[in-house]
């Protein structure tokens, strides 16, 4: 399988282990990534929080690059990039006046056929069977809390992904590793997102509630699908009071462990909270 790839800015910096682990395991699962040439930022929270036209025009640049490269399906591993791209495409498809404005700005026709795919959808396409076949280590006995956050499932009328309130698609993929996906209450709650710098206290509070619920339900690890969520749930554990640490892994890292890839090759050592207790439990 070959698919277009938009890594997004975080995957070159704070979320570099997400890129590292994806490339490593997708190779094993026979997925070829075709990266967008000279892609630019999607605008993230800051664009849509302050300037609507900018929040649509920035993703449109990348959608037009995908079009030029004849990419039919574009995989955006970052939940925020995925969301901005899919929302931009939806608004451009349904608002001719906006499409005209954006077309004038980026000097490209607006008629994008490309489908935007998130990380869970990518693994769904690869298939549980394929992951099971490629499995080198059974993660039986590990309890994982699958965390979706906000931007995979909302706005549901645009993403049409899984279920807006009770998504379960990540749990099905996790089952292919042999691990048990626990039932818990905070899988679609917000971690505080981009407030991490200007309002760190909000992020620490919200993220702690998520981690506490995962621990309360017996999780050994929280599995995430977004670099922003990862940095809030992992790095901000340093600032949590009366807190017992719990490792936070990207979905690609967790699957990678089941495929027998070493934690170092997956970049698990780049986290702030050590995953050592989890790795000990596996081996």
């Amino acid at each position, binding site marked *: 399988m070959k698919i277009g790839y938009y890594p997004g800015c975080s995957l070159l910096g704070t979320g570099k282990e997400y890129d590292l682990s994806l490339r490593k395991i997708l190779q094993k699962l026979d997925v070829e990534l075709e990266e967008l040439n000279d892609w630019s930022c999607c605008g993230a929270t800051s664009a849509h929080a302050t300037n609507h036209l*900018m929040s649509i025009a920035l993703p449109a640049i990348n959608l037009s690059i995908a079009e030029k490269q004849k990419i039919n399906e574009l995989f955006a591993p970052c939940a925020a990039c995925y969301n901005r791209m899919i929302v931009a495409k939806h608004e451009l498809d349904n608002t001719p006046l906006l499409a005209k404005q954006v077309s004038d700005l980026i000097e490209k026709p607006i008629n994008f056929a490309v489908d935007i795919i998130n990380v869970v959808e990518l693994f769904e396409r690869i298939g549980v069977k394929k992951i099971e076949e490629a499995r080198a280590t059974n993660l039986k006995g590990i309890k994982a809390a699958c965390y979706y956050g906000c931007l995979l499932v909302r706005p549901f009328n645009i993403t049409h992904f899984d279920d807006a309130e009770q998504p379960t698609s990540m749990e099905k993929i996790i089952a292919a590793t042999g691990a048990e996906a626990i039932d818990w209450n905070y899988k679609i709650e917000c971690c505080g997102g981009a407030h991490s710098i200007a309002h760190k206290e909000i992020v620490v509070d919200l993220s702690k509630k998520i981690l506490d619920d995962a621990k309360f339900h017996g999780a050994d690890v929280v599995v995430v699908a977004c670099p922003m969520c990862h940095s809030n749930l992992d790095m901000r554990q*340093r600032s949590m009071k009366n807190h017992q640490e719990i490792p936070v892994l990207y979905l690609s890292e967790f699957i990678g462990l089941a495929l027998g890839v070493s934690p170092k090759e997956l970049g698990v050592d780049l986290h702030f909270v050590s995953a050592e207790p989890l790795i000990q439990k596996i081996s």
Partner: protein
Amino acid sequence: MDDSPNQVIRFTQLGFDDKTLKSKTPWLCAGCLTCSARCPQNLDVAKFMDAVRQIALEENIEIVEKDTVAFHKAFLNQIKKHGRAFEFGLVREYKLKTLNLLQDIDVAPEMLLKGKLSLLPHQVKDKKHVKKIFEK
């Protein structure tokens, strides 16, 4: 948060635009879209908050949540300059603007060591259209 989201919407319905635009609430909205997903009146509350922030900036309203504004501006300035987000540049600009100089000095050195905080930005080659969007 000084006003609840429904209060901010009520201000607008009653014509108190000034109260809406001066409220801290839109600036503390993280854009998680939970309210938009669950609103029984089917109102896209998060999108409403996006619009309030944009109008407040356009009309030069004095915004109480200065740090949040500084963050967004510093973030967007990196895209304007490099075409991509640049975390080191963002934090540098944000700290100089807000004088929150000591924030995150507990995690920053470790991020540098882990190679998660690059000192040099990734530059997009063709920045023409990104620049045009910012000039608009």
